[in-house]
């Protein structure tokens, strides 16, 4: 049986709880809490993507669009209509689910890389809409003045409070997804990855499972988008371009696609690389990402989570 150990999850949760405290002690890394908020937001997306791509074997290059839909629904409904941010978040997820259903239904029926092509095109179309529908989205200038979040009158106005909110969502999504992977549903997903004809011959409704996971991963991306919008209080289209979709791929490839932990590790590492460690390269950071993707694909097909296995292999020899 595929079992995902509970202890590392507990240690990970503990690490998240004490992280802001540690960061506060060391002035040099004080701002890491802020970066970790973004890491958490990306993590929400990669957890869904890992289930979709690593476990079910369906490639999407359009998740930046779902992320953007969540962000823009939140932005437009709060700024233009003054709706409650939490309600907007839920509406954003519902809208994203509907869009994912519309995009996924025809493309998931096709075999091979059609889903990748369809989601790629979809991502570009949505990006153009964000840019051109100026009346709604503010165009390339984006939208400012998106309100922050509060829970029962308690404002999440500091970085640390928002950190706990975001990582609370991440942990919930992580545990939920781990449970799915360990269940009969997860078994069916991995079966689909291995052989679609055999899966359907065993009674697995392949299409239904694929669309379910596609929608689930899109909804997580939408949630991440809303959290992003309410954190920065500002959105503009360039956040949701094709390159971000590719960056998401690099995240799960680096961490390791076939293991849900890879989603967390990859999202964390790439976030810190792009917000902190790659400043030196300026615009040339794209080359670094390309190099990472290239090296990982060649030398670490199972990503960083596969490294312990490789090291163990050396010692056994």
């Amino acid at each position, binding site marked *: *049986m595929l079992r995902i150990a509970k202890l590392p999850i507990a240690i990970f949760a503990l690490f998240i709880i004490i992280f802001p405290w540690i960061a506060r002690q060391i002035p040099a890394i004080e701002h890491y809490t802020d970066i970790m908020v973004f890491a958490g937001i990306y993590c929400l997306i990669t957890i869904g993507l890992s289930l979709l791509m690593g476990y079910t074997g369906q490639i999407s290059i359009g998740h930046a669009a779902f992320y953007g839909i969540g962000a823009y629904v939140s932005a437009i409904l709060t700024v233009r209509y003054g709706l409650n941010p939490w309600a907007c978040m839920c509406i954003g997820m519902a809208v994203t689910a509907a869009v994912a259903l519309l995009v996924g239904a025809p493309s998931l029926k096709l075999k091979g890389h059609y889903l990748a092509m369809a989601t790629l095109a979809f991502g570009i179309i949505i990006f153009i809409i964000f840019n051109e529908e100026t009346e709604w989205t503010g165009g390339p200038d984006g939208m400012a003045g998106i309100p922050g979040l509060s829970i029962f009158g308690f404002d999440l106005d500091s970085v640390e409070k928002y950190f706990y909110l975001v990582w609370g969502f991440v942990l919930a999504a992580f545990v939920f997804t781990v449970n799915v992977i360990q*269940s*009969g549903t997860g078994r069916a997903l991995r079966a689909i990855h*291995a*052989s679609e*004809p055999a*899966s*359907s*011959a065993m009674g*697995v409704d392949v299409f239904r499972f694929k669309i379910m996971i596609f929608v689930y991963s899109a909804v997580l991306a939408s949630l991440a988008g809303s959290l992003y919008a309410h954190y920065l209080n500002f959105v503009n289209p360039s956040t949701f371009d094709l390159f971000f979709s590719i960056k998401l791929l690099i995240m799960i490839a680096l961490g390791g696609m076939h293991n849900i932990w890879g989603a967390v590790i990859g999202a964390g590492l790439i976030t810190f690389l792009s917000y902190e460690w790659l400043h030196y390269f300026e615009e040339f950071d794209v080359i670094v990402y390309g190099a990472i993707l290239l090296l990982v694909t060649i030398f670490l097909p199972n990503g960083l989570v596969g490294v312990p296995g490789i090291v163990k292999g050396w010692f056994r020899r």
Partner: protein
Amino acid sequence: MSTVKDENVLEVQKLVMTFGGLMALSNLNFQVKRGIIKAIIGPNGAGKTTLFNVITGSFPPTDGTVRFKGRSIQHLKAHKIADRGISRTFQTVELFGNMTVLENVMLGCHTRVRTSFMASGFVLPQSRRKEKRIRESALKILKFIGLADKFKDSADSLPLGEQKLLEIGRALASEPELICLDEPAAGLNETETHVASSLIKAINAKGMTVLLVEHDMKVVMNISDEILVLNYGQKIAEGPPEDVRNSPRVIDAYLGGAA
């Protein structure tokens, strides 16, 4: 239900399957009686695997009907047909190589026990109980096919003979009424072939109807109650092994008829 209807598990009527201009099956009629082992033989390209694919819903036939327990199924998708009680194996092994031996068989239980996405995400107690039940019945099947001690191994790591057995085990897990085996002895050595044919007999003894495509004539003649012979998508003979063996049309088809 009348006993007459119940007698035939599967009824194929006027089945036609064309791929472009190629007629893979033309106007095929036959029945499979409940509880027997029926073999389908014929030279390469005779349409045997196509017939299996149509019966199990890989693609719908161009024309004609397939009735399973009196109800037509030719319009149904593969997973729906599996739900109705037809299971199959594949000519080229189609195991889930990324999963363990046990998990492969557990997946086979999919038609019987299901958990919803939400129930699995929130780990409701009922979904845990279901998992346990599936695991137990999968282990029982592994014992039956003789792979119990390898339950933890990855399905990829098994030798071909055992992979073939595992495919049969996975097909059994859904407790089907009709099991379609596509060349279960292909690529096996003599010992493995012997194991496979005794397993097929044991499955049949449990009351399951077996439909079998096989090239190994020793296996076919030994275990089947009835044989259907196809050539170029058409039935050229049907009946008990001894009749088919002596049919001039069959000998003709296999030896390339100058006669």
